[in-house]
């Protein structure tokens, strides 16, 4: 709605987007083609050999390159290649990372991105303006491989180049040399977002190069309410599933205070449009702007919702929504406690604590803490069924007073948890609150209580989500647990330790 959002602006004066002229053009295009053909030549070789050839390309440019072997489990592991351009005049304690994975997020061969990376490495080495080291990374995929590299960089990697200030992932997967417009991916894990200034810089630079910038999942125009709403909804959905669904690569930098975005060239099947060196100039300008910074990104917003490349909602405006939703649980709890005439008896309190403890224990066992003990997802679902039946039997055993006490306490805890969650992961808290709000009405509505229970069941919702995302339910649960184990994504913990106990309580009291 008009008045609720603002136009974006570059807050950090030091960025100076596109103030300096860019020279990645003309004959550099020939060089991009040359590298592209060369990479296509060896792309079908076995992994070690092709990586050796790639390192050879970086070596010829004069950069220090190395390979990184990684393995997260017995079945998953491969090799990444990275190369460091040491800034000749900088202090050597900061770095900017440019990534071009072998395959992009949809599994397509990213030869344009890789060729661009190598030619940019050669071109950027000619400048002596770098205050920060430049690291060029070619992981085998933009998901676990990139995450493994980032993790290893901060723990055990052979060559390091200081703390990483910013990262840009390049995705140019088509075979043609032209593209129509650029899509910007910016979501991080657990609701983390890069500083808005990084996106603003890119949009300004794209403006100066006459390239259209879009947000994924939304159209070219953002002037109508419906378009902005769609963009915002897509953004919220992407934040919720970040890490669970294979993402664009920029989310792999979350957790170390690294601001990262992914640039994806779209619509590149025709012979018209911008050429690949324009894409390279976008990257050149953005890297130069990050280089201009002396301080970390700190001026602009870290919490925002983008309604378009030039429109955003800041946290002060959108947080009340999540607060209202989570506080409604609290209000319901207050209502329950306040409407009691007498105080609770000792047995009630005892039974309440015991029930809540049992519910908590069941949820804990389903969470990732015991992921090694309960290895199979089918076992998990079995445990879930057992717990549900336990709740149904408890329903018959417990008295009304106890049920009220349990309900009130659970609502209070749930409301506080959601409030806390909305502070750092608005999308997840809002989505969760939105779906589970009927649980607060259980005592108020007379009919359709079973429907409420059914609809707010985590398994049901996950099933619907799996159907929407077109993957089996078991795979979805597996990827949730994997995301927690490997990527530190807290979604599964939130589902099992906040949502699930509340639902169990709902089963008990309805």
């Amino acid at each position: 709605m008009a008045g609720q959002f603002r136009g974006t602006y570059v807050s950090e004066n030091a960025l100076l987007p596109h103030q300096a002229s860019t020279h990645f053009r003309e004959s550099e295009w020939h060089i991009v083609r040359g590298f592209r053909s060369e990479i296509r030549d060896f792309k079908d070789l076995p992994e070690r050999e092709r990586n050796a050839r790639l390192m050879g390309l970086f070596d010829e440019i004069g950069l220090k390159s190395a390979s990184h072997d990684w393995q997260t489990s017995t079945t998953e592991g491969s090799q990444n290649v990275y190369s460091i351009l040491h800034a000749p005049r900088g202090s050597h304690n900061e770095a900017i990372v440019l990534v071009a994975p072998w395959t992009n997020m949809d599994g397509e061969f990213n030869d344009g991105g890789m060729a661009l990376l190598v030619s940019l490495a050669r071109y950027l080495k000619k400048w002596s303006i770098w205050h920060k080291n430049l690291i060029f990374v070619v992981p085998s995929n933009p998901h676990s491989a990139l995450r493994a590299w980032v993790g290893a960089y901060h723990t055990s990697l052979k060559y390091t180049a200081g703390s990483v200030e910013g990262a840009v992932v390049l995705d140019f997967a088509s075979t043609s040399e032209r593209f129509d417009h650029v899509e910007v991916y910016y979501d991080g894990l657990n609701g983390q977002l890069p500083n808005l200034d990084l996106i603003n810089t890119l949009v300004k630079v794209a403006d100066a190069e006459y390239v259209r910038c879009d947000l994924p999942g939304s159209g070219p125009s953002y002037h109508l309410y419906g378009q902005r709403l769609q963009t915002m909804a897509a953004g919220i959905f992407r934040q919720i599933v970040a890490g669970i669904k294979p993402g664009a690569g920029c989310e792999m930098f979350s957790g170390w205070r690294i601001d990262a975005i992914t640039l994806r060239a779209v619509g590149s099947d025709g012979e018209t449009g911008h050429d690949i060196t324009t894409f390279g100039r976008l990257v050149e300008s953005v890297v130069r702007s990050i280089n201009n910074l002396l301080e970390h990104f700190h001026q602009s917003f870290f919490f925002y919702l983008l309604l378009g490349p030039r429109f955003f909602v800041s946290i002060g405006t959108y947080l009340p929504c999540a607060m209202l939703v989570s506080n409604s649980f609290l209000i319901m709890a207050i209502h329950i406690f306040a409407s009691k005439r007498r105080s609770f008896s000792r047995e009630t309190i005892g039974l309440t604590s015991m029930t809540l403890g049992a519910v908590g224990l069941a949820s804990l066992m389903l969470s990732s803490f015991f992921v090694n003990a309960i290895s199979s997802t089918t076992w998990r679902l079995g445990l879930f069924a057992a717990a549900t039946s336990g709740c149904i039997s408890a329903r018959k055993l417990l008295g009304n007073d106890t049920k009220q006490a349990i309900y009130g306490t659970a609502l209070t805890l749930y409301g506080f948890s959601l409030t806390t969650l909305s502070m750092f992961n608005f999308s997840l808290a809002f989505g969760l609150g939105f779906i589970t709000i009927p649980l607060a009405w259980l005592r108020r509505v007379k009919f359709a209580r079973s429907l409420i229970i059914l609809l707010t069941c985590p398994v049901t919702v996950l099933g619907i989500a799996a159907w929407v995302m077109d993957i089996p339910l078991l795979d979805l649960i597996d990827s949730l647990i994997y995301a927690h184990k490997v990527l530190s994504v807290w979604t599964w913990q939130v589902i099992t330790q906040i949502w699930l106990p509340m639902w169990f309580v709902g089963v008990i009291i309805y």
Partner: protein
Amino acid sequence: MLAWLLVLASGILASTNGESYHEDLVLRPLPKNKLLSSFRFVAEQRDPQLASGELTEYTTFPRSLGQIMSRASTHELHLRFSQGWWDAESWGVPPANGTYAGGVGVEMWAWVAGEDLADAQANWHRLAHSLSGFFCASLNFLDQTVTTHLESDALPRSGDSSDENLYLLRGALPAEPVCTENLTPFIKLLPCKSRAGIASLLDGHQLFDSQWQTMSVDVDHIGDRLRLTQVVSNVIDVPHMQRRRRDPLPRPEPYADLICKEREWSADYICLPDDPRSANWVISEIFDKELAPACPLAGDGPHVFVEASDNWTVKVGGNVTSGSVSFSLGSEPVDLVLSSEDGLVVLENKVPDVFVDRSFTGYGQQSGGLRTVFTNPHDVEVSLVYIENLPWYMRLYLHTMSGDLDIVEDISYTSAEDRTRPSKVQLHIRLPPLSQSSIEYKFDKSLLYIEEYPPDANHGFEVPPALALTSTGYSTRTTSLLLSLAVPDFSMPYNVIILTCTTMAMFLGSFVNLIVKKVVPEPLGEKILVESSLKRRIQAFKTKLIGN
């Protein structure tokens, strides 16, 4: 390097009249089209301060520096200004086994006389301030929070006296920029300035565009003699410099000038770039200046040494030789051309004794970890001393030291004191042959007072490089590190929030008091107080439990 020994020998022989000065320049092609140039200027004479009865004055040794040192009771001074990164894997050992190289920024250590440590620190303070005005660098920031006191024999000394009144103090400022205003006073110390001799090639525009550069000033006392050694070394990327002379910005090459590799898909518009292997390096083009005639004080010895493999031809004036060559400067300016069919073939570089890399581990603003990796590329054992000074706001936990601890023979640790001194970790390490070992320890980050944050607080804080000294005399430094501490929000909204919250807290506190508490007359109040005293409460509890 033999050249250095030769020159040193000739210098010592020339000191019969009490004063001597010599200078030399070493040019050495390095792998991947780089050129190492190292200028050394050594002035020596009898110390005028110690002269008894004889009339001695400052001749080759600059009076300004001598007076600064004597006023600050400094016996020996070492000063380093460095920028860039020395690629030890490709380039081997820096000139003179790394003796004249420093870590990024400014580093200073000196043996300062004093009755006790406090007196020595006062002298160090005086020294740092005087030198800050002299070298136009912020050396005055080398105060107590940054300076450490080491044992007198921790660092190599050229003098031989083991005076007990001498304290070794060392400090480093890794964030200090090095620029022409530091080069100007450096050149002013030379007898011929930059008008004659090898110093005529020194130019800030070229020196500060190098891959690595270092300027060092060393003042030693040897017996009753004073010696000033000034060294400027830098590594230049020659194709880059040649390109900059044509066009300072890397505009795209003209299509006709592209050199491409042969491939089956090569065409006019598809080019896999190839760099020419032949090299033709004209020194006047690289340095933007010609070598001026010799400095009259410098003596006759060879002034310029070129250390190149046999595939290089060196053209000096009219003479053409191949391989390593040395010559003296005459009375005319001279230009030097190094050329080769294959510029990538150079003399083999001596492999350093040890490679040391240091990095931060962990994340977050509360704590972190420090990890140092030592690599021994030789098949003999290497023993070294590793000295690290960490600022006091990195609270080190030595008990968390982990990794390959069996390489550590001895630890000397001085803990930091808040706002008074940094921590000092000195490890004696023995590395097994052909090995790579790492040592890690954890630290906590602390919060500073608001006035202690620098104006660019969100940049982070620079941690000085660590120093590693092997028993064979090789010294190397790690890179500096950027520590990000939690920083308050310096902007106005922060202040507004704080003020508003304080006001609300005060208001709410009083309000809650008013609602919850009841105002009673004093006698009643006293009665309640007596009744609710602790003794009564315990009695009441006992009654409830046991029953009356």
